[in-house]
């Protein structure tokens, strides 16, 4: 499935705007991303969130990724 990368994360994947990864959960997705693009681990350490069909997940790595979902990796935001 296609995983789009927010601009702030693209240098971790050599500048790519999207990458092809197969994963059923967020955990699987992130593990495979780091395996394929070791530079991404720096961004994971800084804090990452995953948007699945527009809903932003910041913490629950057990969250499943349905078939055909739109998946976006983005920086993890905080508030005030």
């Amino acid at each position, binding site marked *: 499935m296609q995983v*789009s*990368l*927010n*601009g*702030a994360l693209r*240098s971790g994947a050599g*500048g790519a705007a999207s990458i092809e990864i197969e994963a059923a959960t967020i955990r699987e997705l992130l593990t495979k991303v780091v395996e394929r693009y070791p530079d991404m681990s720096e961004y994971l350490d800084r804090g990452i969130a995953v*948007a699945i*069909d*527009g*809903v*932003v*997940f*910041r*913490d*629950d790595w057990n*969250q499943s990724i349905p078939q055909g979902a*739109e998946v*976006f990796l*983005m*920086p993890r*935001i*905080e*508030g*005030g």
Partner: protein
Amino acid sequence: MAHDNSYTGQKFEVVGNRFIRPDGVDKVTGKARYGADASAPGQLVGLVLRSPHAHATIKKIDASKAEKLPGVKAIITAEDLPDLTGGDRGMADILENCMARGRALYDGHAVAAVAAVDAQTARQALKLIKVSYKKLPHVTDVDKAMKPNAPVIHDWIITGGVDPKPAKPSNIANRTQMGHGDVETGFAEADVIIERSYKTEQTHQGYIEPHACLASVNPDGTAELWVTTQGPFTYRTVCATLLGLDIAKLKVTSSEIGGGFGGKTHVWTEPVALALSRKANRPVKLVMTRDEVFRASGPTASTSIDIKIGATKKGVITAATLELRYQGGAFPGIWAMLACMTGFACYDIKNQRSVGWDVIVNRPKVAAYRAPSAPMAAYAVESTMDIVAQEIGMDAVDFRLKNVAKEGAQAPYGPLYGPIGIEAALKAVKKHPQMRAKLKKNQGRGIACGFWFNIGGQTCVDLNVGTDGTVSLAVGTVDVGGARSSLGMIAAEELGISYDEVKVHVADTASLGHNDTTEGSRGTFSSGMAAIFAARDAIEVLKGRAAKMLDVPVDAIVWENGQAKAVGKQHGNLPKLSLKEIAAKSPNTGGPIAGHNEVVADGAGMGFACHICDVEVDPETGLTKILRYTVVQDAGKAIHPDYVEGQFQGAAAQGIGWALNEEYVYGDDGRLQNPGFLDYRIPVCSDLPFIDTKILEIPNPNHPYGIRGVGETSIVPPLGAIGNAIADATGVRMNHVPMSPIRVLEALDQAATLEDQVSAG
């Protein structure tokens, strides 16, 4: 037990009403205890010595005279806070910000601290500490700091996000780029292109309660910290790490909090207080003075922004770009990156690009302030939207509606939106009576939109049913503005009992599992979700007990209106059992009844708002008076409307102060000139009118009650709304926030001069 967090669309009995909050009496009688209201036997007074220079090497700290002063029990410097962060850059920055390590990086940076038997002695001791500084060149302006000849503050900073990597260090920590589509093509399709630049000055959250804590470290490595904070668990982790304590051995209790708004999500003096207590072997009470709060806690960023918007004559935006330069103080931050994520969020712009530069200057370390980074970007966007609308002859609201983001539009940060409330807010504004109020001479009207994320996070809650049938709910999210009442209402709603029978309290770190900080508008959303699930857990237990009491199988029991009822023909004539009755028998049916929930409350919605502002500008003084103000915002579901309105009004008031008066003034010497409430002018009662509110309820599909976080969004629109209102009133476009009387007068004078020149020529 797995719980489903989808919106149920149920009808409510308790939720949506305006009940009395449980902590109200303590707060109106002066009984409520805030950070500075705790004391311990044998406690010492802690005070901090701070750099009077914007940038300086610390050559030597001589505390020998101070140490000999009778009553002084401990003096610490960076030497008493060794770096135990193990290469974690973020933690190392926090450590260095709490206590300078060889170099003072801003006016007010802590260089030493003292614990003494009373305040007089501590003050005397500070005077006796001799620090030799060697002044270094400094820079405090974000644009100046980016210039090639600027003094470089950290020689290890090589700009990230730039290809090829720069060869030399600079003050530019990072470049971020976000967006989609093709802006060049988009601009080529535009009939009208407007380009503008804006600047916003630094502001502070301005909470009335200064940072305060009471720290007590024991020789066996256990410690206690009483502190005013938005996040006791975060404070525990950070303080334990910095001091080399076992996290589980540090108990952090949050006091009542006298305002936070993001400024109390990070530690400032707490590690210092703990280190003093450890050295002195006595409790240390450390309270910041007001000028310390301004100089040495975490204000928001000051910014410099360029924007370009292109649109067709018919009002469709074809392309838009933002370049956002944000200073994060003396350490690298993510503030410009956040701005990139929010700038164009209210609109569906197919070709857009936002570029953010995070810059380092000799100012305090920037912290989050209610919807961090969004208000400044929105000022640039909303001001320019009005200029474009005017240029093509379209009404300001209609132009926004024409380009409004709806479900399925792509957000600036990438994903497509789910159901969101900005179109509804704009439509509500269009219909609002304030839009038809008559405007007189020197008066004008402006509207603006705003967006902020909501977050969910780690949350857990304990719900205990007493044998008298009253329910105690322990939550881990600090109550910053009355959420206790909402959480009690949610528990009462689920259990089917009355609100008076639920008592909510905020637990300490030893009594409850980890809870994320109260920030990102998450308090009611996440603790509310956990309370719902904990109540449902308790209901399962209650049903089990009822089954025992009625001697029927448990699947024959349903829970209705606060009672257990046996269903089915053979059980139909059995009595219903109330929660009270079941609780009374609990000692004999299995012991204490409780419900518990740990949840990662993900799937938080987005908060959108639109504001209307009417102003009158005095042409002689440049003073802008707010005549009328309305906030329209989507709350998903307003659990307690009073406290939702309170968030709308409070956030708007902060935005109004930011727009008109508040700014950090730095001198050429790099020192903060106005670290006090006299010259850092926040709105007072006579500055504001009643602030009208309209709560929209577009349910969040990922929360059982549809709740969206509301706390932050309404600080975002005021800067743009007021800029637009001033433009409407005077014909002059302000581009520098705060739009204080001096700046408005200058702009009016310039416009008059230009007019004279034009009519003369």
